[in-house]
């Protein structure tokens, strides 16, 4: 806190008349008119995007909250309080969907978080062919997910699929993959990781380039081996990026839909790949129960809002 200004500061005195107060007598008319015109122009530039946001983002957000407490029957909307939540809660698929989604998130974190980081570490070590390796890793990200997912569906086929053929080379017996409730989710996660790891890998690579080499030298003087260098230098140095990516991945994987939807028809064997978002989809578009879909969506939103808030705060810290 600065002390109150006791001396007459010419700068402060100078600033006062410029404050654009409407109707203030010392304000020249031209100034006010100019300001108004500037604002009209500025809002004119904004209006298109604002209308799109109003219709397709802001209003749907409000509506999501309304829908969750409403019931629509034959076009009649009525308030039902927490009924939709009770319906959703009592659905036997509810628990399974959350367990599956959590399981998917855990698997996707083990695979989808570690694999890109290790990949980036490996690529970063090479003095040749980095461009080629980067290109390879990012290639699947550019494919339409429909194409990659259907492609994996064929690769997973127990009969003519390439996965069993390749594992057969190493003497591993044929697996049922997507048809087996035990391996279905894992198969979905492997496909998902292949499809999506490119972006994370490139971001890690950029972060690794910022790790000062002297730190590695210092660690070597202390006799640190490869793994210790990764653990004590690389990881702490890229900590913020790693944390941000972790949060982003949790947010993204909790919303998984297309992979189970296309690979196993959504539910999978014995419901082993039913996810929360698939359940939302089912309520809304198969059962026409928008209220239940919105209630379930709201639960997901509340859960993910926490992660989002942390992410936004950290991201802002990183940008500054």
């Amino acid at each position, binding site marked *: 806190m600065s002390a109150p200004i006791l001396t007459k500061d010419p700068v402060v005195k100078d600033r006062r008349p410029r404050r654009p107060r409407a109707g203030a007598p010392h304000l020249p008319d031209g100034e006010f008119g100019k300001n108004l015109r500037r604002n009209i122009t*500025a*809002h004119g*530039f*904004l209006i*298109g*995007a*604002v209308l*799109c946001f109003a*219709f*397709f*983002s*802001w*209003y*749907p957000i409000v*509506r*999501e909250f309304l*829908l969750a407490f409403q019931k629509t029957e034959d076009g009649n909307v009525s308030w039902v309080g927490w009924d939709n939540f009770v319906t959703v809660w009592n659905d036997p698929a509810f628990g399974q969907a959350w367990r599956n989604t959590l399981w998917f998130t855990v698997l996707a974190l083990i695979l989808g978080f570690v694999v890109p980081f290790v990949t980036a570490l*490996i690529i970063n*070590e*090479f003095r040749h*062919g980095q461009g080629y*390796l*980067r290109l*390879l890793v990012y*290639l*699947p990200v*550019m*494919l*339409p*997910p*429909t*194409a990659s997912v*259907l*492609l*994996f569906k064929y690769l997973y086929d127990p*009969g*003519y*699929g390439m996965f069993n*053929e390749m594992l057969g080379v190493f003497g591993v017996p044929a697996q049922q993959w997507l048809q087996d409730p035990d391996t279905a989710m894992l198969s979905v996660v492997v496909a998902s990781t292949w499809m999506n790891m490119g972006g994370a890998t490139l*971001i890690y690579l*950029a972060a*690794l380039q910022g790790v000062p*080499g*002297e730190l*590695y030298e210092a660690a*070597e003087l202390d006799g640190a081996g*490869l793994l210790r260098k990764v653990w004590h230098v*690389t990881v702490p140095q890229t900590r913020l990026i790693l944390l941000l990516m972790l949060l*982003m991945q949790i947010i993204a994987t909790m919303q998984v839909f297309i992979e189970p939807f296309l690979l196993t028809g959504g539910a999978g064997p014995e419901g082993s790949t039913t996810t929360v978002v698939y359940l*939302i*989809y089912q309520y809304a578009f198969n059962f026409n129960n928008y209220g239940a879909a*919105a209630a379930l*969506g709201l639960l*997901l*939103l509340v859960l993910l*809002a926490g992660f*989002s*808030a942390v992410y*936004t705060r950290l*991201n802002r810290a990183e940008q500054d």
Partner: protein
Amino acid sequence: MSTRTLISPAQLARPRGKALYWVCFALVVVLFTLAFLGPLYWMVSNGLKTTQEAVQTPPTWVPGSVHPENYQRAWEVMDLAKLLMNTLYYAFGALAFQLVLDVAAAYSLSKLRPVLGKMILGLMLATLMIPATVLVVPQYLTALDVPIVERNLLNSPWAIWLPSVTNAFNIFLLKRFFDSIPKELLDAASMDGAGPLRVLWSIVLPVSRPILGVVSIFAVVGVWKDFLWPMLVLPDPSKQTLAVGIYSLATSVPENVLIASLTIASLPTLILFLVFQRNIMSGLTAGGLKG
């Protein structure tokens, strides 16, 4: 350009280190090629097999006989020309809408600074915190009956174009880039009597070419890759995108033809990527963390 990484240069300079480096390098190159190009090779080659060979156990690594006509069959049977044209129409329409409306909004927020501008930007960025899939249901209901104007957008390209504008991340990227353009440059132009539109057109846009390129590529690729939203709002098969159309026809055509169509659907974005890979990759990392 040798920056110091995990393994010390001294270790690498030794004969043993050198040998180990090249062995590892060869191994990684082979492994990565197999892992990332392998499925693509499988896709292209299975599109060339006969239906019988495509589903035989054990699978073949190299097609026994080559049938490029499968690609032609896929093109005709699945009406890929139509789907491709639809997708292009939606993608470039969305690009046009995003370029005009998002650039205008970002310019206004960055340089014209209207009353409540900060709040509007905040509200836009807040949408990034809402999980996208949660909004699909209310968004769908909005498209079904847009409030006030009371239009049904189902099966119309507007259902793709208008929501694509609500890309807060693009607006944020553009605004940050515009923020970095020196104020003096714009002031000099307005001193010469240029209006805001003129300043945007002749000064801001020319210097913003890199970021406009990145935003454009992501806009087109975004529409190309999207699945759930176009599946919901474009139920008419003749209006569908490639991604949705292929999915809805997947069970009615033989495997080899379907796989050939997957290749065709993947080609445009792959080519786009190979041509613009430098811009895409730099945009990805410059654009912060949103992959």
